[in-house]
């Protein structure tokens, strides 16, 4: 037990030595965050998002235990995202996948997206997380993104998200906005570009 603690401390110290940005963290958060980074590195998970989350908490003067908790939570989400998306998932996909999971999407939705889309999943997953942040129920957001992901471009997904946000700002319920705008985006993509009608403002 004592040996394991010493080993963990040694790894954490090494991680600190390798990553000068850790010096910006509160001293109480530095070693635990370094240990999380080291574990993530050993597991083949991207480390940069974890470090950025720690730096964000630090500059916002969050308590060290909150910073450590946020970094640990993100490391867990990145791991779950990789399980759902596969070991070949790119770091940006894992980061977006972690955001989608944090928003409430299930790992099964991430796996479905992987099967539905050959292109990178960063934007679909980001749009899913952003829709939930806008108030769209996670099931509605997941259904809409799954409907679109197989056939539309990243730019169309971004435009879909904007359309939903615009409708919400105009008073539509988030679920209705997502449900109503998804087929519109799909149809606009299926139609020849020259025939596509501009959206109303």
């Amino acid at each position: 037990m004592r040996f394991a603690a010493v080993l963990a401390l040694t790894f954490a110290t090494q991680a600190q030595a390798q990553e000068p940005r850790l010096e910006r963290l509160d001293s109480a958060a530095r070693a635990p965050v370094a240990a999380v980074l080291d574990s993530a590195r050993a597991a083949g998970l991207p480390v940069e998002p974890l470090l950025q989350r720690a730096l964000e908490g630090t500059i916002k003067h969050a308590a060290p235990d909150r910073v450590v908790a946020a970094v640990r939570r993100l490391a867990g989400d990145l791991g779950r995202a990789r399980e759902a998306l596969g070991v070949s998932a790119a770091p940006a996909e894992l980061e977006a996948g972690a955001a989608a999971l944090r928003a409430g999407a299930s790992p099964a939705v991430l796996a479905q997206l992987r099967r539905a889309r050959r292109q990178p999943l960063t934007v679909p997953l980001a749009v899913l997380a952003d829709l939930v942040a806008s108030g769209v129920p996670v099931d509605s957001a997941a259904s809409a993104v799954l409907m679109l992901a197989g056939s539309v471009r990243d730019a169309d997904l971004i435009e879909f998200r904007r359309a939903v946000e615009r409708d919400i700002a105009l008073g539509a319920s988030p679920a209705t906005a997502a449900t109503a705008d998804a087929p519109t985006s799909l149809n606009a993509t299926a139609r020849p570009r020259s025939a596509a009608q501009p959206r109303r403002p």
Partner: protein
Amino acid sequence: MFEREEQVVERIITLLRQPVGIDPALDRRVMDEIAALRTATHSGTVWRWVAPLAGLAVAATVLVAVARSAGPSTQDLQFVLVAPQAATVSLVGDFNDWDAARTPMRPLRADGPVWSAVVPLAPGRYHYAFLVNGSRWLADPAAPAASDDGFGAPSSVVTVTGGRGT
């Protein structure tokens, strides 16, 4: 005789999409600022969209726009903040190690209310926020909110695609 539910919803959405009347003076002030902005930026700038005016109610309106490609895999994104009372504004986020000294925003006109910074970003999803006068955190009211980690200050999210960001 009776409309189907989908038709009712469609009609409601159509009504909701009707333009909302805005004070013409406000419209003119905002368009003047945008015109000044366009003049001050790279000649190849393409403005994708302008943030909703609703943000004015919180003393600041934020715009994010794609400027031009900075390379084969990055985009120059222009972050714009309208903050009339600000003495200093910093753009901080995942892309600059949350270092307030790294990306100071600059007023587009001397003593003007519009602050701007351009950052080259590779495709991905980034958290960011504005630090006003060194102490006040401001999220982008026109961008998706980042998940709350209990840090006590809000952040926003920008997603950069291969072709543009939002």
